[in-house]
């Protein structure tokens, strides 16, 4: 395996310019989506099938009584133990040599388990129409520009970021940098922390957050649901042996919806709910 890379996002250096959002659309040829007024500078509630990263804008009264205007580039975390990969009945989701998690559209059948099981709610289904006019769905999310990585280029969002809020590099070096940065900014942001949740085996997008994860609507301690582990590691292989892959997706849909029964919260932009 090649060196493991991570995208290091230091939100305390971000000035909210949103070049990362446009760079993503530009590189990945994603269309714009009309948006309602959200009452803040934020454009989208969360990532969608056509908007793979969203800049969060949060007005936060800090522990010193001062006002912080916090920004966060939110996109797929590329978990080391990715729930989406675990629950996919078609093995359409896989890890690359870089540690990124990608969806193979050839294999994806649009069942949506990945959408329901992502602890960070970054995956969405998009509806397409084929040449016969039939509709079909595929899951979409940030690819970490794996196609660029293969050519030796960094992700488009990182490449355009002007404040140094995003870097892409060797995993160990980036994590070390993040830890040092937290020490530097403790005076300014007493709650600052490295966000690299171990419940999902660590992530390939590592943050320095200025505040607790809940301020950003992030789960404090996200985990791969036990049921997903059971599904991927036990039920699915056995099931496939017994009844064949295609039917398995149908069975899978039933089982997944039953056993994961993830509560579907309204996507408040303040977020705040924690996911287990």
């Amino acid at each position, binding site marked *: 395996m090649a060196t493991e890379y991570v995208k290091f996002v230091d939100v305390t250096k971000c000035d909210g310019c949103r070049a990362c959002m446009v760079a993503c659309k530009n590189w990945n040829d994603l269309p714009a989506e009309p948006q309602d007024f959200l009452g803040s500078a934020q454009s989208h509630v969360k990532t969608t099938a056509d908007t793979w990263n969203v800049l969060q804008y949060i007005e936060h009264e800090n522990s010193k009584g001062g006002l912080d205007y916090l920004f966060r580039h939110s996109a797929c975390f590329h978990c080391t133990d990715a729930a989406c990969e675990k629950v996919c009945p078609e093995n359409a989701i896989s890890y690359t040599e870089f540690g990124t998690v990608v969806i193979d559209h050839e294999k994806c059948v649009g069942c949506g388990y990945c959408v329901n099981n992502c602890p960070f709610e970054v995956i969405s289904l998009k509806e397409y129409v084929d040449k016969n006019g039939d509709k079909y769905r595929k899951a979409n999310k940030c690819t970490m520009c794996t196609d660029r990585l293969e*050519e030796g280029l960094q992700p488009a969002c990182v490449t355009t970021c002007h404040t140094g809020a995003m870097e892409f590099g060797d995993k160990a070096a980036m994590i070390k940098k993040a830890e040092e940065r937290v020490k530097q900014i403790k005076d300014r942001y007493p709650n600052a922390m490295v966000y690299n949740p171990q419940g999902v085996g660590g992530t390939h997008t590592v943050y320095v957050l200025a505040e607790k994860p809940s301020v950003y609507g992030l789960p404090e301690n996200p985990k791969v649901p036990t049921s997903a582990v059971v599904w991927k590691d036990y039920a699915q292989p056995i099931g496939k042996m017994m009844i064949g892959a295609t039917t398995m997706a149908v069975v899978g849909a039933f089982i997944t919806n039953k056993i994961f029964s993830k509560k579907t919260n309204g996507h408040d932009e303040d977020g705040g709910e924690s996911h287990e």
Partner: protein
Amino acid sequence: MVEINLNRRQFLKLSGATAATLAVVELGFDTKKAHAATKEFKIAKSTVTPTICCFCGVGCGILVHTKDNTVVYTEGDPDNPINEGKLCSKGTTIRQLYTSEKRVKKPLYRAPGSNKWVEKDWEWMYETIAKRVKETRDKTFVATENGLTVNKTEAIASLGGAALDNEECYLLAKMMRGLGVTYLEHQARI
């Protein structure tokens, strides 16, 4: 001929990845020397031309990737010391200046009292505008005023130009002064 190296682009040191050094001639990069991609890569075989952002006055460098008569990608110019390859949201979007459906592609004319545009050819537009300028100018031209030679018309105005190239600004200023226009204003105040 200008040599442009793209060697400051942030290439990863990945096995098998080559940091491409592209040579460029004035009117675009020499695509023969561009790195050959092993598979269909978005900017493989594109022609790369350096430009400067058209929005604010910072002057960031941008590379425009063109292929098959369209713009396939735009990105920060890593060699430009002003932005070192970085861009804001606007600079990142200039690809859509070319691809936007909203661009007007033909000259349009609206007649007095009309409620619609009519497409016209350039020749007709140039000739008709030149005539209107002459009519107005001749009717309103003031050669002398209080014994001073003033050679002006105060009935024609020219506004804008802050997004034009220097060479265009120069010719526009020269033409307008040549016509005797005094109502000459660009966007410095607005």
